[in-house]
């Protein structure tokens, strides 16, 4: 006990009882099997403990058992909304480990599918977020309508809509089908219309503003200290984007900007994603225009029976949700000695309590929605 400081039990006669509510694991707006142990004073949150692990699938241990190639389909299932960026981050780590060269065309294809994935993720997230605010699913349906078009593109390219399993060490699995680029162009051309409509439906809506502005504020300092990444960090006013910082792949060739917010509240996180989509569209336009022909995979690279030389590597990309990293240690065997994922959702989730304290249950739901978590990635 610190001398001079006396801790006094304050008992307020008007103070009511604390109500404990266990929200989840099956609750309509916990985005999967996630639980929040919430203590409520009236409707104000006095304590919130996130409880997760209901969806734990032993991903990292399995990956240490199967071949390097065999882990790629498992990475699809981490953040199941954006499998392509998961593939990409993992391939980047393996490529670093084994020193493969990625052909020019493959890099462009990766950027194109990566940015399309960002569009998919952000449309979904915005829909879910507004759904959590109680909007009867209308924005969600509009978001899904657009997402569907991009998923069609993925199906045409990779054979699957969500579990794409497309990237390979040193390149990509297969070349673009005939006419695919034209379809992409069509989708991209129609996309701004959707964004405009979405903005006019929501961004000036008084109810959304009342519900999202000043709610779930994440300060710049806390965001940096807690290792928050992605749109959540940028909404708090830190201009940190790995596409600029690392300039991995060929992102240095594209002209795009990184939007940053000033308040770090739910509304900023929402708007930052909207603005990011517009930037993604710019990148897509440039990448499609400059798409070269050539090989799609490093001829030296081999997928099957890959045994990288002993060493370690950390590959990270700016996934739609934040910094997605894969850390691999190889002992020269057919499977990694250590395999570790840095999931952006999980780390962004750690500040949930700080953002929710003092707010109401409704605020907590909105904040959780604005963080953008996918339980597949949080629990792994």
């Amino acid at each position, binding site marked *: 006990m610190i001398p001079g400081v006396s801790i006094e039990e304050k008992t307020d006669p008007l103070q009511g009882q604390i*109500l404990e*509510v266990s929200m989840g694991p099956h*609750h*309509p*707006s916990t985005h999967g099997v996630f639980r929040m142990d919430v203590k409520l004073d009236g*409707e104000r949150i006095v304590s919130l403990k996130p409880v997760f692990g209901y969806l734990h699938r032993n991903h990292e241990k399995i990956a240490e058992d199967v071949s390097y190639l065999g882990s790629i389909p498992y990475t699809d299932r981490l953040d199941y909304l954006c499998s392509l960026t998961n593939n990409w981050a993992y391939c980047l780590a393996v490529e670093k480990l084994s020193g493969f060269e990625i052909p020019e065309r493959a890099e462009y294809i990766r950027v194109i599918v990566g940015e399309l994935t960002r569009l998919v993720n952000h449309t979904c997230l915005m829909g879910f977020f*507004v*759904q*959590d*605010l*109680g*909007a*009867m*699913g*209308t924005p969600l*349906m*509009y978001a899904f*309508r657009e997402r569907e078009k991009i998923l069609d593109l993925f199906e045409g390219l990779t054979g699957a809509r969500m579990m794409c399993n497309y990237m390979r060490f040193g390149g990509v699995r297969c070349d673009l089908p005939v006419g695919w680029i034209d379809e992409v162009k069509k989708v991209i051309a129609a996309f701004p219309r959707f964004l405009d409509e979405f903005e006019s*439906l929501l961004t*000036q*809506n*008084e*109810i*959304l*503003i*009342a*519900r999202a*502005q*000043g709610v779930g504020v994440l300060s710049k300092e806390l965001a940096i200290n807690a290792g928050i990444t992605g749109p959540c960090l*940028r909404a708090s006013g830190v*201009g*940190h*984007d790995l596409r*600029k910082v690392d300039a991995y792949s060929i992102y240095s060739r594209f002209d795009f*900007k*990184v*939007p*940053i*917010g*000033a*308040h770090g509240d739910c*509304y*900023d996180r929402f*708007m*930052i994603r909207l*603005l990011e989509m517009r930037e993604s569209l710019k990148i897509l336009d440039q990448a499609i225009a400059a798409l070269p022909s050539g090989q799609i995979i490093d001829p030296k690279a081999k997928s099957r029976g890959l045994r990288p030389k002993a060493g370690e590597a950390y590959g990270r990309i700016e996934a739609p949700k934040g910094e997605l990293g894969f850390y691999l240690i190889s002992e020269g065997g057919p499977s990694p000695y250590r395999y570790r994922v840095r999931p952006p959702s999980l780390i962004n989730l750690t500040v949930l309590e700080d953002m929710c304290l003092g707010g*109401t*249950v*409704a*605020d907590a*739901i909105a904040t959780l929605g604005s963080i953008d978590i996918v339980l597949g990635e949080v629990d792994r």
Partner: protein
Amino acid sequence: MTLVERIDQAPLLLQRWAVSFFPALLQPWVAMLISAAAIIGVFASLFALSTLAERKGLGRIQNRPGPNRVGPFGMLQPLADGIKMLIKEDIVPLRADKVLHFLAPIALIVPSLLVYSVLPIGRNLIAMQCQLGVLLFFAIGASTELSIFMAGWGSHNKYSLLGSIRAIAQMISYELPMVLAAVTVILATSSLDTVNIVEAQAGGFWAWHAFTPWGAIALLTFFICALAESNRAPFDLPEAESELIAGHLTEYSGFKYALFFMAEYLGMMAISGMAITLFLGGWQAPLPILNFIPSWMWFFGKLACFVVLFIWIRGTLPRLRADQLMNLAWKFLLPIALLNIGLAGLWVKSSGWIAWPISVILLGLAIVGLGRLLRGSRPRGGKRIYRYAD
């Protein structure tokens, strides 16, 4: 009686015809029973229709076709829903208060139906003409809060309890501005009788109360309160799915749930009916030329417009937070409604065009000022400028 009048009065004539078969002693009772049966029959089928309209409308709003499998264009969907609800297992939680859990839906549906007795559906078509019709409407409406409390408390579920507490707080808060909005009409017509109120608005749409400055504001206030009273989006906090699962409905299933559902829609239509009666001329045609269309068709037409508006709003708006809801009621609607009563008094006393500019200026100032208060320190329209990192 001309043919037009006959069609207009058809329900009444039918009732008289049916009653004439009974001995004189029983006739008032039979007439009453027939009125009640007609109300239950008509509005229950309207409930079915409006659920279908809601599902179809929401579907279209969300770019999907809505129910289209049962019957032609999905028209029989309400029937299928009804059968499903009837044959579903009725689950009562183990530790629930069985009696309250059972009584709550019944205690809710009775007042929801009772309020229709004072709504004039057409010329001479009213189940119970009562000197105090408007007061009766609100008095009976006030008792629905208890049944929601019974449902929430009887379910023995924290979400239910939270939901019902929210519901009651919300309904009590919004009842106040709603009644005050109705008071303006009572002031103008100096009558609490719904029939008199409708008759005071005869002549054409310019005679409707909605087309006076105080009437327009009162209608708007009344409508916002109606949304809240019937627990519809954006004020559907008591059953906020994303927060409280389904609020006081969480532990209900099967037919009891259907009763709650029905009560919600009946309440919505009753309040719309009251809004029509008070502000939109009730069963009066908007133009005297259109009087050949039966009066009850005008009433139901206006009711349909209201239902569509309800659905449209539900499909568009996110939900408010509980404290914001209270702020809206107490800091915005209540002062406006109070000011509005004063303006209605001015209108009645001056009975001329001088009240127009005064009302418009005062109301405009109040709305802008209170709106700013509600917005707090936020910039206009919540607009924010976003920077880009270098």
